């Protein structure tokens, strides 16, 4: 598994750029990934989405369905794409350190 180093931290990532373990997540990771996900500056709203995903994952062990994410954050799906251009799965989940989405994608 390839490793990346950023601001003194080392991350193991897969081909799609997801980290291998949620426990390795730290704020530096978000800073490192943002550019490859088409994000210039992180706003409070970005962080809100990231925190909602992380809280849900810690509690339920899975990522929330899109409908739950939009309900809890109050952001419409279109706005989530404005925040995270590659969308809630590839963009936000990757930055939040959640495992890679699976299934028929």
């Amino acid at each position, binding site marked *: 598994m390839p490793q990346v180093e950023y601001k003194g931290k080392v991350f193991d990532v897969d081909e799609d750029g997801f980290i291998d373990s949620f426990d390795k997540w730290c704020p530096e990771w978000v800073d490192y990934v943002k550019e490859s996900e088409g994000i210039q500056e992180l706003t409070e709203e970005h962080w809100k989405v990231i925190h909602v995903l992380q809280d849900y994952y810690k509690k339920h062990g899975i990522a929330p369905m899109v409908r739950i994410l939009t309900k809890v954050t109050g952001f419409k*799906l279109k706005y989530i*794409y404005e925040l995270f251009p590659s969308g809630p*799965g*590839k963009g936000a989940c990757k930055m939040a350190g959640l495992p890679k989405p699976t299934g028929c994608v």
Partner: protein
Amino acid sequence: MALKHKTPMLEELEKGPWPSFVADIRRMAARKPMCEDLLGLLELSYEQKEGHWKHGGIVGVFGYGGGVIGRYCDRPDLFPNVAHFHTLRVNQPASKFYSTEQLRKICDMWEEKGSGLTNMHGSTGDMVLLGTTTDQLEPVFYHLTHELGMDLGGSGSNLRTPSCCIGKARCEWSCLDTQEITYDLTMTYQDELHRPMFPYKFKFKTSGCPNDCVAAIARADCSIIGTWRDKIRIDQEAVRAYAAGELVPNGGSHGTAKRALDIQKEVVDLCPTGCMEWDGKTLKIWDEDCTRCMHCINVMPRALRPGQDTGATILFGAKAPILEGAQLSSVVIPFMKMEPPYDEFKELIEKVWDWWMENGKNRERLGELIQRFGMKAFLEAIEVQPDPRMIKTPRYNPYIFYDPADVPGGWEHDPKAFRERHHA
């Protein structure tokens, strides 16, 4: 040309009369190392009887949540040129009519930016561009949208690319402008197609008549199937010409030699409702008993035609076996006129989506939600009245739920009053 990998098993598949995918890929391998490694990898899979693609893959283009299927080879040490082998789904024109000019442009782009290999087409309908690397995804997307006027198709938990039969473009039976419906739905629901928002995937397919050449009833969560509600149009002269052997039955599908059609045996006796009569001169159809199965029309296309008051039957719920078993779509709207801008249909669809998005579990197809909640709950949610045409037979078990509002006295029950009448 000689490949750098040995492929003895694949070479067996260059023999025989059917067009060989191996020979085709090999021809491309002369120019594209990706194709060469693909054949090598496939040979390895033939040897070991195991796939050599890693699990999953999440790649895409900015702004969309689907359209690209990521794939990575699990032996990049042996086959470095297919280390990345992502697939792009490209939304095809309805019924897949193309100009060579457009196809040449697509091919030129794909030979430059991808493997040069395609699937024409994926079973949902998309033009499938097979095999490229992550860094080429945005350039391919830019080229598709800016130079070719094409967009990606759907993938993930969203509306997948709608598709249809050839419809009125080249079929005298089509009761619907299937291509226009498909194009309209595709354009209206771009957002639902590109940005996954559903519990799971959802597909539309439109067939012009019950022959269902796009298999809508089996392969779409919402199947739109053309039909009519007036009379089958009969040309008695042409019927007699079939009986006399002047016209070849079934358009020659069972042999083009001239032969007299035995209308009694091959048409009347095979009619599923027995609503036809042939006295040797005149064919009669009791249309009120006709279920519009298409058999007589299929046998005598020059003599019989669908009616002119056309529309669609709308069915919901088809899916493959996972998880709860395979389903064909069930009739929900026996007849609906289908004319632009299709407002009645779209209102219905949006009610269906609202209900499914609200109640569907993660990865639960519409057909499974209908099964879990019941057809009654589904009909109530989409505000459709039950109709005998929606069922094949009534239920044979007596586990019947009633709404307490429909039962005198409701569910409130006084046990003391009961005991006064019935001593313990």
